[in-house]
């Protein structure tokens, strides 16, 4: 099966610091994968490189066989690759509904028409339908997380990149959000790539893990293998107890 996303030898330097070094991996259509790594491993930088928010120094990114090199972020979204942000970035001063409408105005979906109906359907899907008219400034953090996903979904992506979707959430909020992501994968056939620190939920959610440290990929494999991988264990020892705790 051909890859949906093919990342080859991607490198990015910031001055003397190599944030992402020689990263290569592929995503198969319909797969749900995760990027694991301690703080500063280059995970978010990699997301920014894939979505055009930062320009590549070296390497290639191919999506459905076409190169994404040099494309502006909005063009990449309109190819079918959408993202969320680690910190929620709602459009302040607008309602929940309007926030999602903006995603529905991406040329990729706008052409099909039915913008408002589509926005309503997506709010329904993520469980925000009852709060459509609420100004985003009045939303709880958990709802902002859902809105972040809803706005990305509005652009009708084939591949969804989620940057720490559980960040800042309590365990009672993580479970339903995790179920939502699983549903998007199972029912919509979305290919999903997740960055996450909450390892327990993460490991249950993803089928494959790309482990990074100091900007490099140190291991790729199923979650059960990755948590026992010597280089992954080494990267985490002394930093946090969590991964060993759940292994």
């Amino acid at each position, binding site marked *: 099966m051909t890859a949906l996303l093919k990342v080859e030898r991607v490198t990015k330097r910031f001055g003397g610091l190599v944030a992402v070094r020689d990263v290569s991996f592929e995503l198969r259509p319909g797969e749900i994968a995760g990027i694991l790594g301690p703080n500063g491993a280059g995970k978010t930088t990699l997301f920014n490189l894939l*979505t055009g*928010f930062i320009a590549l120094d070296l390497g290639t990114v191919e999506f459905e066989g076409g190169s994404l090199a040099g494309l*502006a*972020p*909005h*063009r990449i*979204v*309109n190819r079918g690759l*959408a*993202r*969320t*942000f680690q910190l929620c*970035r*709602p*459009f*302040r*001063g*607008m309602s929940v509904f*309007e*926030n999602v*409408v*903006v*995603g529905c*105005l*991406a*040329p*990729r*979906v706008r052409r099909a028409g039915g*913008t408002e109906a589509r926005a309503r359907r997506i709010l329904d899907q993520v469980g925000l339908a009852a709060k459509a008219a609420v100004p985003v400034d009045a939303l709880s953090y958990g709802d902002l997380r859902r809105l972040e996903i809803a*706005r*990305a979904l*509005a*652009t009708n992506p084939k591949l969804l990149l989620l940057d720490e979707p559980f960040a800042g959430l309590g365990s009672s909020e993580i479970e339903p959000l995790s179920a939502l992501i699983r549903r998007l994968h199972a029912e919509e056939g979305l290919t999903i790539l997740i960055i996450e620190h909450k390892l327990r939920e993460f490991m249950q959610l993803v089928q494959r893990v790309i482990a990074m440290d100091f900007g490099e990929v140190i291991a790729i494999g199923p979650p059960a293998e990755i948590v026992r991988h010597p280089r992954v264990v080494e990267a985490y020892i002394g930093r946090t107890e969590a991964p060993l705790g759940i292994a």
Partner: protein
Amino acid sequence: MRRLNKDVIGALTVLAVLALAPLAAQSDYVTGILTVSLIFGIWAVSWDFMSGLSGRENFGHALFIGAGAYTAAFVDGKFDLSPWWGLPAGALVAVLFSLIVGFPTLRLRGPYFALAMLAAATIMQRLMRIFWQYTGGEEGIPGLDPLFDEPLSTYYFCLGALALVTAALLALARSSWGTILRAIRGDEAACQAAGINVTFYKIASLVISAACAGTGGALYADYQQAVTPDVFAVALSITIIIMVYVGGMGSIYGPMGGAIVLALLPEVLRGLGEYRLWVYSVILMFILFFSPDGLVAPLWRRLRGAP
């Protein structure tokens, strides 16, 4: 639907009052003051469309006004064409200036656009003085042909232009175009992540804003039958921003009201003599202090009831 009806009734009432005002005053002087207030309305509404909605403040709206005014003056005074040509020509040259400033600066985030507009308007004001052989220097270009012989005709033409500009920009602001501009104001990167070509919307909105302001500038030149370098003045740009603030930023119709009220206020206060500007400033400070969202738009929302 009811809300729309109330908006229509409100708009028609304002239009009727403005249509009757010069008839009640029966004085060419008052008609002139009212005409200028309408032209300020066009400038404020066009500023609000770009900057009020998208949050990218433009500190040099006078660049477009001056471009429109001088173009109209050249068309009429130097090329000896009908003054009517000044309106489209003024709009066109203003659009050209908006592309020159907007293209390099609106691709960037940060204060570059605001500062470039401020600088460009100031440079143009200087250039008008330096190239006095062509521009008439400090005296500018006098003796232009008016669009109409009757001051009242000029007034009604400006009223029509203001109504048209306000209605068109209000419709655009309430369409998905306006939703996108407000999203840009909220978070530009998130807007890109939603698949929106942010740079296109900013530049296109500036072009629309410039076209309206340039037409207003041409109208101003025709009304005064002269232009001077002051049409590029920083003070003019700032006055327009204050009018937008008082009107209620981002509402389009509010700045129209703010412009008319503030343009007329000095005349109303004329009886105070030397204290006029002092009182004017204090009134402004009170408005901005006690009603930071402006006066006109919030007042109308309250009158209309519910959002």
